[in-house]
């Protein structure tokens, strides 16, 4: 087993960066048994920045997200994670409680006397205003995931974490959800960390794409495209090719055109 390099805040630059950062991760390692899933990862997300975390299955992307979400209390590891006070998480499944009606699901754990009004407003935002008193199983998969989005945004999070939130939806619904998420993001401006293995999804949604491979980042790509993105745009295609290359998912003759990682 490797010795863990436990680097904590090392002076000025960190403290300065924290001011504008929504997430700050220093020297994060995580292991399952003998397998090291995250190798000394550092990560800073700016406030209001939409970041996609891309990687193959087993690359450690979900482990990183769960660590930032504070859900990995059973995993062995070291490192420092700083997050804002209000953090929300969207799961791959909508994870609505089947015994609560939709509105009650949305306001689950939401403090304040106006919780239900805020919940209704959040449902309106995802066009589910009329389904507030429905049971979760009465909704389609896309509607359930929209309700889950409403639940995650109703608390006005400074950081929204999403673990392959559209992974179980059909292709058409996914496209609609992409537009919805981007619209909600632009209105609420949380920092977003979206875990996905879908390159198109990452380029469509994010302003920054991180590629994780074997427990460490291999690429940090800025997506400088307009908010309303056209997959036919040559720049879109170039980003796509770069990312596929970093993921090792291109035919051999094309990899030489891209920024090749090790």
């Amino acid at each position, binding site marked *: 087993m490797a010795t863990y390099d436990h680097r904590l805040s090392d002076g000025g630059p960190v403290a300065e960066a924290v001011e504008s950062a929504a997430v700050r991760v220093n020297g994060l390692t995580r292991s399952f048994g003998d397998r090291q899933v995250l190798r000394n990862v550092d990560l800073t997300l700016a406030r209001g920045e939409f970041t996609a975390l891309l990687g193959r299955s087993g690359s450690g992307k979900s482990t990183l997200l769960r660590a930032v979400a504070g859900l990995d209390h059973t995993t062995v590891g070291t490192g420092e994670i700083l997050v804002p006070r209000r953090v929300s*998480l969207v*799961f791959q*499944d909508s994870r609505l*409680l089947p015994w609560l009606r939709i509105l*009650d699901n949305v306001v*689950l*754990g939401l403090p304040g006397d106006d919780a239900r009004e805020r919940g209704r407003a959040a449902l309106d935002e995802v066009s589910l205003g009329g389904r507030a008193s429905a049971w979760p199983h009465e909704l389609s998969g896309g509607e359930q995931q929209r309700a889950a989005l409403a*639940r995650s945004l109703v608390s006005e999070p400074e950081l929204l974490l999403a673990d392959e939130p559209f992974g179980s939806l059909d292709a058409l619904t996914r496209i609609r959800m992409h537009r919805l998420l981007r619209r909600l993001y632009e209105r609420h401006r949380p920092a977003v960390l979206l875990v996905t293995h879908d390159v198109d999804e990452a380029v469509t949604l994010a302003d920054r794409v991180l590629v994780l491979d074997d427990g460490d980042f291999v690429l940090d790509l800025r997506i400088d495209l307009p908010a309303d993105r056209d997959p036919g745009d040559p720049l879109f295609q170039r980003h796509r090719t770069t990312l596929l290359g970093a993921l090792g998912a291109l035919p051999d003759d094309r990899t030489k055109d891209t920024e090749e990682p090790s």
Partner: protein
Amino acid sequence: MNLDLTSRTGGGTATVTGGPEKAPPSSAPPASTPPADARTPDTSAAAGLVPAIQRRLGRGKSIPFGRLLGPLLLVLAWWGASAAGWLDPRKLSSPASVVTSAQELWVSGRLQESVQASLSRALLGLLIGVAAGVVLALASGLSRVGDAVVDGTLQVKRSIPNLALLPLLILWLGIGETMKVVVIALGVTVGIYINTHAALVSIDARYVELAEAQRLSRWVFLRKVVLPAALPGFFTGLRLAVTAAWLGLIVVEQINATSGIGYMMFQAQQYAQSGIILVGLVLYGTFGFASDALVRLVEGRVLSWRRTITA
């Protein structure tokens, strides 16, 4: 259904869905109805096609009051056998004479008295047993210490039948009402405990994770996540518990009872009045059946969010 679908998918698909929507609402399979549009010019003649068949592998629609059917058939068979003279009236009276016995008991007031005595015993034992079972299940399901103290004990109790405890309970409590209620409550407690505890500790880890992600307080977590998730298990336990209560009642009413349905039956046995014995049996059966139906009804209301194959 069709209409709803087209309105949601929007105008772009109208030409595609227009065909089946305009088709007459006959029950003929789609292969034999020629659609109006030109998409499928020659269909029915195609070789190797068979009409679409609806398969149904579920259990189908439920029969209204279907649960009563079996018992009614049984009574009918009994009636027929008695009328045909196949049954010795000294061993098994006819349904008619059972009704007559019940009438006589009603007029003398013994029926009401016995039923009231038995019902209050069973109900009291059930209430105490359910309360104890729930409290113990919560104690062991929600805390490690409680689990360590309670669960093993209850599992030991589970393997000792109440009948085996009777001598001790009689020694402690005598043969009065207290002993009777305690025996019933003990049987009820175990059924409630086992099922509620199992439901509490097998809660879906994904929901625990959600509660952690939503930063729920322990109290809200219990109220909104744990307890609702355990309710189906509780109701399974409750149905077993109701059965256990009647079973316990029957056992304790055989022991020096001076009132109740069991006492009434015991006396009838002394005078070889098989009609009255049967009245008692029918009462036990009816109470058991009705109470189970009642629990099912409440369960259906409380767990209306569930969609199962029984729906």
